[in-house]
């Protein structure tokens, strides 16, 4: 597979704050590339730099093998995007919005093309309705139609499931998978929802405080040997003491839980061991694998202390 997008040492600095620092990554053709990070990690800033909305302070971006800033028109004519919300002209109809942005993409616009796009996202019957009458999910689907109307090779979606209900999230997920697998598009999708990235992405990057902390193939990152397990016992201090004599000595107390990184297959053995030591176990919960991975990478850098009652 060819490298479709290449970012080298990208930095964006606002006065003394580095929103993105020395970020390098590459996206292969046909990838669904996940961009994972907490709110404020620098995902949107990076994506806006990929779309020329923000100028980098330093670094280089190449898309389709071409330097972005010197070839802006050529690259953007083959790129579709939704940034955060699909904000469209509320006072225009779905058809008018799509037509307007299609013409800006400098393609030959026909009624058939526009209606096909609206059909694809399930809005053909509402083509003459004003966007202000649409639900958030419908706006998001129209945003997708706008992003795809010029048949781009690269699609960049920044937090595309924000504000959607569960059905909307599932629809969006299916659409992204279809774009990649059936239509051969390359998709970059950012999210702070780990489960989202885990389900759809083939490769991903994790950024934290503007810096890359991991990049790779998602399946390889979901190593069951690194499952984060939360154990709640009647006496966590005693349990911790027992664990420190074992291979699970890295356990720490997090709020009302003991938290330890371990192989998922060893959980029964852990329960037996604590039982033998007379520790009453209230609950054992293996955390979502990617979530565990993410938290271990960010050193449990939470904004709010875990709630303990």
């Amino acid at each position: 597979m060819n490298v479709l997008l290449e970012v080298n040492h990208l930095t964006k600095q606002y006065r003394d704050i580095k929103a993105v620092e020395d970020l390098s990554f590459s996206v292969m053709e046909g990838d669904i590339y996940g961009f994972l990070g907490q709110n404020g990690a620098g995902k949107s800033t990076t994506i806006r730099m990929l779309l020329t909305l923000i100028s980098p302070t330093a670094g280089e971006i190449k898309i389709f093998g071409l330097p972005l800033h010197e070839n802006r028109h050529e690259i953007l004519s083959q790129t579709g995007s939704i940034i955060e919300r699909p904000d469209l002209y509320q006072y225009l109809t779905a058809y008018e919005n799509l037509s307007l942005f299609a013409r800006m993409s400098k393609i030959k616009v026909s009624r058939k093309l526009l209606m096909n796009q609206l059909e694809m996202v399930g809005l053909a019957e509402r083509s003459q309705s004003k966007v202000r009458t649409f639900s958030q999910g419908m706006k998001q689907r129209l945003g997708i139609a706008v992003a795809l109307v010029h048949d781009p090779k690269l699609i960049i979606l920044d937090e595309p499931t924000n504000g959607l209900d569960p059905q909307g999230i599932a629809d969006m997920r299916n659409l992204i998978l279809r774009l990649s697998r059936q239509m051969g598009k390359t998709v970059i999708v950012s999210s702070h929802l780990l489960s989202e990235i885990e389900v759809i992405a083939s490769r991903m990057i994790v950024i934290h405080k503007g810096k890359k902390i991991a990049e790779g193939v998602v399946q390889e990152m979901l190593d069951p040997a690194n499952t984060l397990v939360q154990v709640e016992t009647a006496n966590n201090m005693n349990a911790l003491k027992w664990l420190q004599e074992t291979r699970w000595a890295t356990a720490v107390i997090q709020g009302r839980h003991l938290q330890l990184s371990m192989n998922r297959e060893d959980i029964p053995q852990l329960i037996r061991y604590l039982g033998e030591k007379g520790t009453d176990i209230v609950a054992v919960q293996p955390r979502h694998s990617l979530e565990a991975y993410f938290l271990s990478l960010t050193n449990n850098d939470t904004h709010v202390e875990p709630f303990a009652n």
Partner: protein
Amino acid sequence: MWSLLQIEMFKISRRPRTYIAFAAISAIVLIFQFAFKADGSSYMNLMLQSVQDSFELDRIKAINGYFMCYIILNTLLVQVPILVALIAGDAISGEANMGTLRLLLTKPVSRTQLLLVKFMASFIFTVALLLWMAVMALFLSMAIFGVDDMLIFRVSGEESQILQIGADDVLWRYFAAFGYAAIALTVIAALALLLSIYAENSIGPIIATVCIVIICTIVSNIGVPIIDKNVKPWLFTSYLVGWKGFFYIGTNADGQPIPGSLENWPAIRKSLFILIAHIVILLGISIAVFRKKDILS
């Protein structure tokens, strides 16, 4: 560029707020016309009090379409900058507020092109507004009040003057005056567009534009010699009412009006030059700022 301009004009035409300005102009003009039709003679008596003995009015029909248009423009062209700011001040900030700016800028269109198109659309709106004023204030008044020689009341220093322009010498002056007003109002549009780049909602740039116009107008009329000499000549507000110059007819040595002449064409030309310079400078700054702006909305 043409396609972008069409898109921009389509968007403007579909927004209800666009028509507020046209409705406001229609309302004001119709009120004036109704008032003068009902009781125009009282107004004329008041205006002519000081010159009644020396000026013979019976010869012409003083309240006619040309005169009405002049009276209306005198009042209306002071308010129109607000209407122009409503559209131009919304050009970029409105897109930022709706969230469509980031979508527009991810399309293969240069920022300079986009800004120029926004400016051209504001200019077209300004011209459309003036054309509507011409239809309402000039042509409708001509239909209602008829046509005759035109009287202009002018205060020059301590002295009040009445200028009389022949009926067949008026229409071209109106076309020139509307053309001048279009350029003067385009300065307001360029200013509002520049301020619009800095904001993420429309209210800020619209209010800021109106405030700047008010402040500059006050400074233009402050009457202090040091400001009159050093500041006033460079303020665009000093030239906003320069369209009146087209109605100050030139006279011969005997004080008789010379048809087709202007009293001070060089002053009008200088005013136009300064207004156009303002447009070029404001637009240049807008392009420079917008090209480098990080879009965070």
